[in-house]
């Protein structure tokens, strides 16, 4: 108990003192996850729109597939990407293994099914009359798509927040394809795993604080967004 409180005090001191290594890891973690969510979100939302508004063969199968893919363990994604990106793998020539790009790719794969599934739910909740009204008022179908997305904005923001929450804290994929290289691919979850295995709890706890604070802020924002959405119903 005494060790824990001492480690926690040291962790807070590390954060407050602006320890370069810690803050570099935090920045890298957010940079990778932001880039992943930025790339994944528009494509996922468009796919969700197609699944919600167009009827084509295999549509239901695709929805089931994305729902299933939500529960793929991060370590399985990491292992698959490792095999694909390793020197002997089919994508080995790209030399992406142990790079931030590989981590971003892994995180995109992880959050994509969640983004599609939750965006699909959000778009399904929008009244079909919104699309018909936009079209009958003579706007181009592309603008009608944006109108429907705007009507579903609260649900879509919630989907993106949930997707970000999934990847900022994942360790399996980042560890396997990023390699946990200091100053280059070490992010918060991989650093926590490493520091804990070394017995250096202070840094692990400090980074854990950041993740918890992030989770709290995201959930507060999500609650605010959902409450705002409810008042419009």
């Amino acid at each position, binding site marked *: 108990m005494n060790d824990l409180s001492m480690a926690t005090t040291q962790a807070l001191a590390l954060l407050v003192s602006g320890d370069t290594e810690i803050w570099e890891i935090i920045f890298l973690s957010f940079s990778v996850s932001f880039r992943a969510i930025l790339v994944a979100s528009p494509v996922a939302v468009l796919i969700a729109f197609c699944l919600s508004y167009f009827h084509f063969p295999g549509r239901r199968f695709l929805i089931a597939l994305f729902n299933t893919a939500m529960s793929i363990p991060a370590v399985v994604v990491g292992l698959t990407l490792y095999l694909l990106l390793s020197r002997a793998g089919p994508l080995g020539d790209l030399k992406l293994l142990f790079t931030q790009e590989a981590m971003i790719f892994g995180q995109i794969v992880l959050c994509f099914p969640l983004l599609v599934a939750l965006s699909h739910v959000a778009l399904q909740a929008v009244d079909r009359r919104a699309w018909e*009204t936009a079209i*009958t*008022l*003579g706007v181009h179908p592309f603008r009608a798509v944006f109108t429907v997305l705007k009507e579903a904005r609260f649900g879509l923001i919630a989907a993106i927040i949930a997707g970000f929450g999934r990847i900022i804290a994942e360790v399996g994929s980042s560890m396997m394809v990023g390699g946990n290289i200091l100053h280059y691919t070490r992010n918060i979850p991989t650093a926590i795993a490493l520091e804990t295995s070394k017995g250096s709890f202070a840094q692990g706890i400090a980074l854990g604080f950041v993740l918890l604070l992030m989770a709290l802020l995201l959930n507060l924002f999500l609650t605010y967004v959902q409450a705002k959405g409810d008042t419009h119903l």
Partner: protein
Amino acid sequence: MKKLNKQAIIVKLTNISYQRNKQIILHDLEFEISSENFILMTGQNGSGKSTLLKIISGLLKPDSFSLSHKQSVKNKKSWLAAKKFLRKNFCYLHQSPYLFSGSVHDNIAYGLKHQALSRQEIDHKVNEALKIVSLQHLYNRNSYALSGGEKQRIAIARSWVIHPTFIMLDEPFANMDKHSRNSTYDIINQLKEDNIGIILTSHDPHSGELDFNRHMHLHQGNMIEKTI
């Protein structure tokens, strides 16, 4: 209201058929409408009135159809080409209209924003439309804060402001109180004065209040023209 000096446009749709879950909703219908027409369409619940209006407005693809219109003497069997023509000329209003999130101004300006108009011109047209439905005081009101009758009138103003050739009104008086009904009668009669062709579906003939010049009745997937 300023009268628009438009040449009457006649649109003819033939061979309209539509099935839903293997049940025939519309069977080989023939339908002609002029922009000078004010048509009352009656029929029992489930007779296919809304389905027909959505097909005519280009919102619902029929199983078969043929379209011709006098303006350019064209026959269009391809749904893509027909849809484009129908959507350009027909504006459909739902029984319970959908207003987008935002203000009343945003809603009425919605269809104008792709028409290369300046902000001042859009604001002027929005004001003009609100004046027609006597709801100028709701200019900045959030659309969620409107009553059912106000929503219906705002939706009519939103359609009127883009000056379509035809407006399809699907049961506009459902769930309306007497006061809202009377205001809406006046607005609809004014649409007619603007040379906008109208099809209005209803259970009630409204013979005294609205100046219909045609009466169509849908029964078991077939259309019957009745005398007014």
